[in-house]
């Protein structure tokens, strides 16, 4: 169904091809998962499938891509629309209309299908993906998981034989990700749709995959063996490799079976952090946003040097809390103080000496043409010695050239740059809003280690339970603007199956593969 023959793609002005020598054959009805580090060309390969590369992006494509008998060389994306459904990284960016039903019909309108067919297919898709409650709603009002399901539905109404998905669950909370994956599972099993998807959060999808293709090497095989030797293995696969299980399990169920009878000593709690950093007190924080309560009376205290993870569904008030703590965000009532200082009353320049915040889109902070320029500007803003920010950046992410444009940095490097800008003011508290988006496993491990090493109190909002397991001492769970759980990371994440990391599900009491390795030694 999908055939790549010796495909290489070189973007204009790029020194080296983004992908090279790709040979790939995905037969009909298979769910094939692309895995690889950030920047290994996963998105580029996906865009080749429906001809967006090179027809839309420019660049040079060598070799041949044939989808269902049509060569993408002669068929631009619009001529493949009846054959390939493509759902990009950000579903919202691809929405053309404003309402769920209109969006579902858009592709069919373009294909010129008669009204009776359209009505029928919209109803079928609504049933298939469980969208009945949403059909009359405005797209802007849906949650992330709902938007992602609508985007998939909108691709499906054209009855494509191939569905291409770029990171369908990366931005979603665990519950919403389950919704999307259940829908995908149904498509593959019931309708026989061929699915090709790329994902960083392998732990969520790998058990559904028939085959894994690793980039850039383009080796492919059964998920377990293929990932066992890869840098981007999910925790359960790394655990299997560590324990020498054969075959390497990809699902929790298989891993539990393999682990039967293995007794590990009780886990030792991680060494306490040195208590350097600010103390944060939040008292009765309330905020309404567009008529909906974002925070409804939040009380908690963060001690000096704690590593806190704030979790909760999309829209649970996590970001609002972070912004209010920094002092730039609004707060209707209540007080927030850092080391006794009310940050909301301080001036912007003063504020960042107490609290540094890395927003969800780090690039919002950047506006100069070079990394060196941004670092120098940060030193001026912080009143720090020239070279301070650059020094921090070299510690966080060594080897970034000063002449490079911030837009050309990888996701992880850009995060490091913005974090360096925040740290140049030597804040006592550092806040990060969803920093793990777009980071692969090695990237997340590096970030966790980096955050643990900072001489400041750190709070992070995230959906990523595996990251929380590696990084946090303490977890606060928000729901509808209220704290519903607060305690040591090991206790909170193990209490609920939704928040439990994979290792905990196999060996209760352990959070990470490293802890298990330590215990075996």
């Amino acid at each position, binding site marked *: 169904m999908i055939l790549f023959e010796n495909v290489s793609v070189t973007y204009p002005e790029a020194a080296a091809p983004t992908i090279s020598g790709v040979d790939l054959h995905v037969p009909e009805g298979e769910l094939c998962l692309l895995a690889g580090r950030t920047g290994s060309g996963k998105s580029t390969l996906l865009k080749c499938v429906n001809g967006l590369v090179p027809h839309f992006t420019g660049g040079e494509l060598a070799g041949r891509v044939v989808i269902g008998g049509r060569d993408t060389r002669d068929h631009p994306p619009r001529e493949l629309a009846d054959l390939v459904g493509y759902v990009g990284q950000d579903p919202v960016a*691809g929405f053309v209309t404003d309402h769920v039903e209109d969006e579902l019909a858009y592709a069919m309108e*373009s294909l010129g299908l008669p009204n009776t067919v359209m009505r029928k297919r919209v109803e079928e898709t609504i049933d298939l993906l469980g969208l009945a409650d949403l059909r009359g709603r405005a797209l802007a009002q849906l949650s992330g998981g709902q938007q992602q399901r609508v985007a998939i539905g909108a691709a499906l109404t054209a009855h494509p034989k191939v569905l291409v998905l770029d990171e369908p669950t990366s931005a979603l909370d665990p519950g919403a990700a389950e919704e999307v994956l259940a829908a995908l599972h149904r498509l593959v099993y019931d309708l026989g749709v061929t699915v090709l998807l790329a994902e960083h959060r392998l732990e969520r999808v790998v058990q559904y995959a028939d085959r894994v293709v690793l980039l850039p090497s383009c080796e492919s095989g059964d998920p377990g063996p293929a990932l066992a030797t890869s840098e981007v293995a999910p925790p359960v696969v790394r655990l299997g490799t560590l324990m020498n299980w054969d075959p390497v399990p990809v699902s929790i169920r298989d891993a539990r079976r393999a682990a039967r009878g293995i007794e590990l000593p009780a886990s030792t709690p991680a060494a306490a952090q040195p208590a350097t950093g600010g103390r944060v007190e939040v008292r009765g924080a309330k905020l309404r946003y567009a008529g909906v309560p974002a925070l409804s009376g939040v009380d908690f205290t963060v001690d000096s040097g704690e590593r806190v993870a704030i979790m909760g569904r999309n829209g649970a008030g996590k970001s609002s809390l972070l912004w209010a703590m920094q002092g730039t965000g609004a707060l209707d009532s209540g007080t927030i103080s850092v080391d006794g200082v009310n940050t909301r009353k301080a001036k912007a320049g003063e504020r960042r000496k107490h609290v540094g915040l890395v927003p969800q889109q780090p690039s919002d902070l950047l506006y100069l043409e070079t990394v060196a320029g941004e670092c120098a500007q940060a030193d001026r803003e912080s009143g720090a010695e020239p070279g301070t920010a650059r020094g921090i950046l070299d510690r966080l992410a060594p080897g970034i050239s000063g002449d490079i444009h911030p837009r050309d940095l990888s996701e992880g490097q850009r995060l490091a740059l913005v974090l360096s800008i925040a740290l140049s003011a030597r804040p006592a508290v550092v806040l990060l809003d969803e920093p793990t988006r777009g980071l692969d496993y090695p990237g997340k491990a590096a970030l966790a280690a980096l955050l643990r090493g900072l001489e400041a109190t750190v709070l992070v909002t995230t959906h990523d339970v595996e990251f929380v397991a590696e990084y946090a001492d303490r977890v606060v769970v928000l729901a509808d603007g209220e704290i519903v759980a607060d305690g040591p990371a090991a206790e909170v994440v193990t209490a609920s199956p939704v928040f439990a990391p994979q290792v905990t599900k196999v060996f209760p009491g352990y959070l990470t593969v490293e802890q298990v390795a330590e215990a075996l030694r």
Partner: protein
Amino acid sequence: MPDRLHPAAWWVWALALGTAASRTTNPWLLLLAVAVAGYVVAARRSDEPWAGSYLVFLKFGLAAVGFRLVMHALLGGVEGETVLFSLPEVPLPGWAKGIRLGGPVTAEGVVASLYDGMRLAALLACLGAANALANPKRLLRSMPAALYEVSVAVTVGLTVAPQLVASVKRVWRARELRGDTKRRARTVLVPVLTDALDRSLALAAAMDSRGYGRRGPGSKLAGGLVLAGLLGACFGLYGLLDGTGPAAAGAVVLVLGFGLATAGLVVGGRRVGRTTYRPDRWRAPEFLTVASGLVPAVVMAVFPDGLSPAFAPLALPALPVLPAAGLLVALLPGFVAPAPSRGTK
């Protein structure tokens, strides 16, 4: 969706109401027109992003009134007897004779420019009502197939523009994190524009991936016919609205223009193989809405008494009964149009 009024009906209603407002400088009538538009918007707007545009346009209108008053104070125009105060007059060279800068400001002049500004504000309020009530994207869907390329470009713009506002706010907030509250344009423009460009490209890619533009472009002949026709229609409309020229000539040009445009649309429409999902239909509520909007416009054309109150000598203008009653008829859509379904969150 079945419970939506055809967007074109809203536009005709609002434009007709605006035409009525543009024919009068009577402050009572103008206030009434603004109130009528406001009531219908409050009763029938949806929860879509632009449903708030009535207030935005109303603010534009207030700004227009203020601007008109300031310009009058500076430049004068209408002379009168009741001098309120005098601004220092700037002597101008001989060649600028007839232009006055500064000088006495009269109550009559202020009242005249106030009425004039209010007329513009009422017109803007009607436009705002149309924007708030009619989903522009649905209006574009009802556009004839020949104009498809144009309507797609507008769709991309309409989608990206509100996002642009959101991203300006986001970047501004982020800028404070750097301790930089000086709102220098460059520091905001760079991230916002790159963001907007990325979004437009992503949207265009999504449209292409979903089959937009499959059956080849429309013909040049059709495009030319449509353009000429629409230009003609604009001139005709201007002739009608202006009120100083012969109305018959305006009407003839308008009809001719629409004829040309229709011919172009028919020729062009044959080439595009596109269908519309659950097209908006034109039923009784649409007819009633359009008719209720046309009533005040017609009444004011037929009974022009009291539409342009005198401002010298100063007196409180009277409220002409028939035009006021006509304006009240335009409230009808607030009752007959289907109530929008509001999403519950």
